[in-house]
C-alpha cells in the first residue's frame, strides 16, 4: 500500500505541474500580446509597455516560465489591478461558498443516485428500471443554466417559496444544489446500474449464490463491492464536471463562489484572478482524484498490491 500511495502522490504533483504549465502555454499561445489582451482594445502604448514589464514579457520564454513557476509555488498571481487586492486571497475568500455548494450537491447525488442505480439494476428491464433510466437521461441532458432559470421561475417567481439568488440561509442553498446535483446524480444512477449489471453474471456472484447467501448479501456485498471499483473512478473524473458546473450555477443564482468570481474577472480582464481561480479549482479536483485513487486501492487489492 505504501508504494501505491507514494506513486499516486507523485502522480498528483505531476498533474498539478502539468496544469500550471498548460495555463502558461495557453496564455502564451493565444495570438496577440497578453498585455494587450488583458488591457483591452482601449489601452494606450504606455499602459501596454508597463504591463509587459510587470508580466515579464520582455524576458525570454524560459525565464518567463521559471518566474511563473516560482510565483505559482508562492501562490503569487499578482495584484488584482481592478480590485486592488492580492489575487489569490480574493479567490481564497470565495472558496468556502463553492465548497459548501459542491459538497451538498455531492451528498445529494450520492444519497439519491446510488440507491436509484441499485434499484434499476435489480429490476433491470422492468418499468421501474425504464422510469429511472428516463429520469437519468433527462438529468444528463438538461442544460443546468436552463434548469436553474426554470427552477427560479417556478419556485421563486411563481410559488415564491424559495429565494432566487444570493446566499446566507439554507433556503438559498436548495435551488443551486438541485441544479448542480442533477447531472451528476443522473450519471451516478447510470454508472451504478451498468456497473452492477456487469458484475451480476460474474463467477463469484454465482459462487455467492451457491454458498447459500441471501440475495441481499449477494448483491449488496459481493456484487456491489466489485461494481463500486469502476464507479469510484468515473465518479472521481465526473466530479470535475460538477466543479465546472459550479461556474454556471453560481452565475445563475448569484452565488458568491469561485465560479462567479471567475466569470466576473473574465469580464473585467482580471487575468491574475482568472488564473488563480482556475488553478485552485484544478487543485481541488486533483486532490479529490487523489482521494479517489486511494479509495480505489482500498477497494481493489489487485491495484494496491501490484508490483509490491
Amino acid at each position: 500500500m505504501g508504494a501505491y500511495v507514494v506513486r499516486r502522490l507523485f502522480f498528483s504533483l505531476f498533474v498539478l505541474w502539468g496544469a500550471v504549465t498548460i495555463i502558461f502555454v495557453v496564455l502564451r499561445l493565444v495570438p496577440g500580446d497578453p498585455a494587450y489582451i488583458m488591457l483591452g482594445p482601449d489601452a494606450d502604448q504606455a499602459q501596454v509597455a508597463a504591463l509587459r514589464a510587470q508580466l515579464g514579457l520582455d524576458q525570454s520564454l524560459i525565464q518567463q516560465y521559471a518566474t511563473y513557476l516560482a510565483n505559482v509555488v508562492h501562490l503569487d498571481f499578482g495584484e488584482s489591478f481592478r480590485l486592488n487586492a492580492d489575487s489569490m486571497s480574493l479567490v481564497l475568500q470565495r472558496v468556502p461558498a463553492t465548497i459548501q455548494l459542491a459538497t451538498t450537491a455531492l451528498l445529494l447525488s450520492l444519497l439519491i443516485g446510488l440507491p436509484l442505480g441499485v434499484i434499476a439494476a435489480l429490476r433491470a428491464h422492468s418499468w421501474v428500471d425504464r422510469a429511472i433510466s428516463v429520469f437519468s437521461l433527462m438529468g444528463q441532458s438538461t442544460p443546468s443554466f436552463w434548469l436553474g432559470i426554470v427552477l427560479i421561475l417556478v419556485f421563486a417567481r411563481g410559488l415564491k417559496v424559495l429565494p432566487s439568488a444570493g446566499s446566507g440561509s439554507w433556503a438559498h442553498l436548495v435551488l443551486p444544489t438541485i441544479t448542480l446535483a442533477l447531472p451528476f446524480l443522473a450519471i451516478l444512477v447510470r454508472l451504478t446500474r451498468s456497473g452492477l449489471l456487469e458484475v451480476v453474471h460474474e463467477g463469484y456472484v454465482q459462487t455467492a449464490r451457491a454458498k447459500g447467501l441471501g440475495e441481499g448479501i449477494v448483491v449488496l456485498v459481493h456484487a456491489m463491492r466489485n461494481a463500486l471499483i469502476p464507479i469510484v473512478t468515473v465518479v472521481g473524473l465526473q466530479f470535475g464536471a460538477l466543479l465546472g458546473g459550479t461556474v454556471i450555477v453560481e452565475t445563475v443564482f448569484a452565488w458568491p463562489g469561485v465560479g462567479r468570481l471567475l466569470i466576473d474577472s473574465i469580464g473585467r480582464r482580471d487575468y491574475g484572478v482568472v488564473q488563480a481561480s482556475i488553478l485552485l479549482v484544478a487543485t481541488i479536483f486533483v486532490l479529490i482524484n487523489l482521494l479517489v485513487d486511494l479509495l480505489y486501492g482500498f477497494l481493489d487489492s489487485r491495484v494496491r498490491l501490484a508490483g509490491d
Partner: protein
Amino acid sequence: MAAAVRRRTRAGSARIRFGFAVIAVYVVAAVIGPWLFRYDPVGTRTADRLKPPFTRLSDGSFAIFGTDQVGQDLFAQMLQGARISIAVGLATLVLAGTIGVTIGLAAGYFGGRLDGVLMRLADIQLAFPSILLAIFIAALLGPSVVNVVIVLAVANWVTFARVARGQALATRRREFVDASRTLGAGTWRLITRCVLPACIAPVLVVATVEIGHVILAEASLSFLGLGTPASTPSWGVTIANGRNYLADAWWISTIPGIALAFLVISLGVLGDALRDRYDPRLRSL
C-alpha cells in the same frame, strides 16, 4: 456455444429509430428552417417586443413561440440557433475525433514510451474540468464560432483518444492480429485493416453521446457570454438574453431550453441504443 455464435442482437431498434427520427427533424429544421423563416440579427421591432407565444405580430405573421426583447420572432431565432448549435457540434466532433482517434491509436498500438507521454498528457488535461478549460481558453480567444469549435475540440479530444486507445490495446493483442503479423503484414496494414476497423463502432457510439455534450457545452459557454457572439444567436445566447426578462417573458428562456434538452436526450437515447447493440460487453445483458 452455437447459440453464442448466432447471437446477433437487434437490441433497441425502436430507440434507434426514435433517436434518428428526432435528430433528422432537427437537422432538417436547421438546414432549411432559416430560409423559410428569415431571421435578421440586427432587426428591431419595438411594437412586437416580448409578445407571448401564439401572437399575431404587427406585420401579420404568426409568432408561435412569441417574440424576444427586441421584437424578434423566437421561432425564427431558434431555427437559426439550431443551425449554429448543430454545426458547432459536428465541427467540434470531427476535429476532436480526428485528433483523439489518431493519438489514441498511436498510443494504444505502439505502446511503450509514446503511450506513456500521450496518456500523461491526457491525464493532465483531465485534471481540468473540461468546461473550465474551455472557459479559460474562450476567455482569452474571445467569442466567435470558430473559437468555440477550437475550445470544445481541445476540451473533448481526450474522450476519443481513450476509447481509441482502449480498443487498439485490446485489438493488437488479439490472435487474429498476430495471425496477420505472421503472414508478414506491416504496421500500416495492421493498423488500417485490423485495429482501425475495430475502433469505428465504439468511436461512433461515443461520438453520438459526445455530440450532445458538446452542444450542451456550447450553449453553456454562450450563456456565459464566452461562446458564440450575440450576432449569432445560438440557443445559449437566446436563453441568456431571456434571463433578464424572466418576470415578463418566461418563454424566451424556457422554450429554447426545451428544444435543446430534447435534442440532447434524443442523442442520448440513440447513443445508448447503439452502445447496447455494438458494445459486446453490454450485449450479453
